[in-house]
Every structure is written in structure tokens, then in C-alpha cells.
């Protein structure tokens, strides 16, 4: 599903974020990416949804060699990747329903399909009753649920979640984790960067630890491994 071969990434300002990363993530895996701030986690994530391109090395996602992808083709790759952020990135003037439907609209889905599918995913994240609420009227956890609904509405093969519980209290975080596990259970690969020790140590999954731009540990059913 995701394959990186000797990935290097140096930014224009000279900082090197990744140095020779090799990793294979299979279909339907659930992977935590852990490590100190500034270790290269975010760059790792951005490479997957092609926000950044590697300076050196090959990366393929879902069969696309995305380092060498033509600009024209990028949108089609992104349609197969759902992205979730710490700060939700919802459009403030649109309702929960509209925020989710937006993701279908921009890839030109027929209207009647949009309605049905949007209500379907809002029900899955447990927010059907708040479909017409604006983001400001929702709690942090609810906003993240809307963001997750938006990420999965086009049925992507991979979900990339960059600290999805970073702004949430523990109880709400567990709700989000249950939801992600449910989505993973339905067949979606999930790559999640996190600083949440409790979640990693409780909900045991594969753990990839990145430090100073390299993978220092890759462990099935691993633990968080850092003291905070």
C-alpha cells in the first residue's frame, strides 16, 4: 500500500527532515508514527499525501509512484488518501453536512449520491443529528468527527492522521480512536502520527519511531517508548 525506498528530504532552507527512510506499510494496517517534535514525523506524513516530494528516493502509494507523478495526476492520487489534522481544518462558514459534502462536490460526484453518502458517514461518526450545525457550534471532538467524516466520505484506501487527538481531552480522544479503529476494521489503512502515550500503549498497533530523520524502531504491537 505504502512503500518508501531510501527517502531523503531536505527543505529549501537546508534543514534535512528525513535521511534514508525505508518502510513498507501493507493494506489494512494501522500504524502509529511516534517520535520527538521535529524528528520528521510531519514530513513523513506529508510525503504520503504528496504535500511534499522527496529530495531523493522512491515512494509509492496505492500503486502510484508519487514522487514522479505529473501535476495533472496528483488530484487522482489524493482522492485515495483521506487526511485528518490536529486543527480539523473545517470551513467555518459551512455546516457539518456541507463540510463533508464539499469533499464529494469538488471531485464532481452527482448530487443525489452526495446527499446519501454524506448522511451515511455522518451517521457512522455519530453526528447525523448535528448535520446542520456550524463548526463553531460543535465541540472539539465533534469537529474532529466531521473532519474524519470528510476524510472517509470518498472511501479512500489510506487515512493519514497527523495528531488527530492532539487538541482533545482523553475521553474525547478515545471516542476518536474507536472511530478510527472502526474505519480500519472496515478495510482502510491508517497511518497516524501521535504524541499520545496512553493511546499507543493501550490500543496496541504497529509502532514506527522516527528520530532525527531516520526510523529507529519498527515494532508490531509496540509501545510508545518515550517518557514525556
Amino acid at each position, binding site marked *: 500500500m505504502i512503500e518508501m525506498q531510501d527517502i531523503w528530504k531536505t527543505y529549501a532552507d537546508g534543514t534535512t527532515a528525513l535521511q534514508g527512510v525505508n518502510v513498507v506499510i501493507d493494506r489494512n494496517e494501522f500504524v502509529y508514527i511516534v517520535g520527538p517534535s521535529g524528528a520528521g514525523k510531519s514530513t513523513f506524513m506529508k510525503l504520503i499525501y504528496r504535500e511534499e516530494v522527496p529530495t531523493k528516493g522512491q515512494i509509492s502509494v496505492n500503486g502510484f509512484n508519487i514522487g514522479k507523478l505529473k501535476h495533472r495526476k496528483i488530484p487522482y492520487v*489524493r*482522492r485515495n488518501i483521506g487526511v485528518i489534522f490536529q486543527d480539523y481544518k473545517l*470551513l467555518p462558514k459551512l455546516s457539518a453536512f456541507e463540510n463533508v459534502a*464539499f*469533499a464529494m462536490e*469538488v471531485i464532481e460526484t*452527482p448530487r443525489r449520491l452526495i446527499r446519501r453518502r454524506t448522511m451515511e458517514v455522518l451517521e457512522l461518526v455519530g453526528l447525523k443529528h448535528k448535520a446542520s450545525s456550524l463548526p463553531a457550534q460543535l465541540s472539539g471532538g465533534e469537529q474532529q468527527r466531521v473532519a474524519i467524516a470528510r476524510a472517509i466520505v470518498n472511501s479512500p484506501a489510506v487515512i493519514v492522521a497527523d495528531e488527530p487527538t492532539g487538541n482533545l481531552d482523553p475521553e474525547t480522544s478515545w471516542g476518536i480512536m474507536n472511530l478510527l479503529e472502526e474505519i480500519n476494521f472496515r478495510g482502510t489503512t491508517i497511518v497516524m502520527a501521535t504524541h499520545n502515550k496512553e493511546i499507543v500503549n493501550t490500543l496496541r498497533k504497529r509502532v514506527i519511531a522516527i528520530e532525527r530523520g531516520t526510523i529507529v524502531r519498527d515494532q508490531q504491537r509496540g509501545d510508545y517508548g518515550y517518557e514525556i
Partner: protein
Amino acid sequence: MRFSTVLRHLREGFKNVSRNGWMTFASMSSIAVSLFILGVFMLLALNVSKLADQLDNQVQINVYLQVDVEQPKAEEIERTIKRIPEVKSVTFVPKAEGLKRFRESMGEEGKAALEGYENENNPLPDAFEVEAFNPQQISFIAKQIEAINLTDPAKSIAKVKYGKDTIEKLFSITNAVRNIGIFIVLGLAVMAMFLISTTIKMTIIARRREISIMKLVGAKNSFIRWPFFIEGAIIGFFGSLFSTLILLFGYSQLVKTTSATVGLYMIEFASIDEVRMLVGGTIIALGTLLGVWGSTISVRKYLKV
């Protein structure tokens, strides 16, 4: 593209226009002003060239003989001119008639000044007025008439005159009008484009978040661009529509109030019907194009899609 997508782009385009109220107004005004001036110059050029056409039709050749040419010689020349196939008619204007016309053209003052030049004292030569079947052959005929002198040792023809000077003067005016117009209009068009691209830039900045989310969920670049093109086209279209309306209204008023006076000189304005499609169509098409161009610049520069 799906029909619902087209509708969406149109909706978004109009939404953007109303979102940046003042900037939209500024860009529309600058389009309107620059195209209004373009329109004025177009109308000027159109009417001057129409005028040139009309004068062209009234053009005749005046052939002046030497003062001392005798009657039989003059008749011989007249016959020679008549033999030129392109010539429609030749009218003999004896010197007495020439003096009479000259006096009339001078009015009251001339009467006194020209006193005592009658008969033997008449300084004017005999002349012919030559008309052509086709005004465009005028200069060709004139050359042939001049050529008569070549076989005439007395060189009886003093001068061959036709409306060449007038027509050339008119064309040089038309050209000047056109050149000055092009400069002013180019300058204004650049300004209009700059304003439009700034307006679009503001829309893009206001919608940065939305655009980044669109990109993340896999919107095609063309999908992201369309609303901005439509916004530019709307600004260009309405700006130029506004200037066209004012221009055509102003022109029709001008024609209405002055055509009676101008008609005395045997010339007429380009009719409003003629102008409506030509000037109006050009201006609106140009304005819309300018709008799209302005937004293209911004989209390319700031969207980086």
C-alpha cells in the same frame, strides 16, 4: 464537465464578485473607463473613414490648361481625355465660368477684390472637370491626362488636380487618431488587468483555506481555477457592458442633435445600427477577454495549483 459543476462554478464566481465589493467595483470601473475611451476612438476612426469614403465618391479631376491655349487645341485635348476608357464624363469650364465660380466662393469681399478681371483681363485658364466611373481609378486617370503633355510640344496642360491631398490628409488624421488611441487604450487596459488580477488575488487569499482543502481532497486544478476565471469574466463583461451602454447612448444623442447641421455638408454619421454591433460587440468581447486574462495572471501566480 457535469452540468451541476458548471452551475457550481457560476455560483462561486458570482459569490466572489460580491465578496470583494470595492475591489470589484474598482476593476469594473477601470475596465469601463478604458473601454469607453477605446470606444470613443473607434467611433472617431469609423466616422473619419466613412467620411473619407463619402468624399471619395465626390472626387473629380480638374484639368487646368495653360492660359494661352486656343479653342481648337482645348477641344482636341477634351477629345483625347474622352477617349480614356475609365472616364465617365468631361465638362468644359471656360475661363469666364471659372471666374464666376471663384467670385461666388469668395462671397461679398471677393466681389470687390476681383473687380476688373473680366474678359481679356481674366487671369484664369480654361479647365475641364473629369469624372470617373470608379473613384479609385482617379489617380490612374489623372496620370493618363498628365501624359497627354508628353506628345504635345506646347505642353498645353498646366495642371491636373484631384482630391488626392484631401483624402491623404484625412487618412493621416485617421491614422493619428488610431495610433494615439492604441497607446491610451493599451495603458488603460494594462491598468484594468492589474486591478482585476489584484481583485482575484484578494479572493484567492480570502479563500486560501478552502483551496487547500479542495486540493487535499483531490479537486482537479481546473475545478479550482474555474470560479476565478468566471469572476474575471463577470467583472470584464459588466464593466464593458456599462461603457458600451454609455457610449452608444451618447453617440445616438450626438447623431440626433447634430446630423441636421452636418447633413448640410453632404456627409452623414455612421448609423447607430451600424455602430451597435461593431463597437458594442468589440468592446464587450474585449472586456470579457481582459477580465479572464487578468484572473489567469493571478491564478497562475498565487494559486500554484
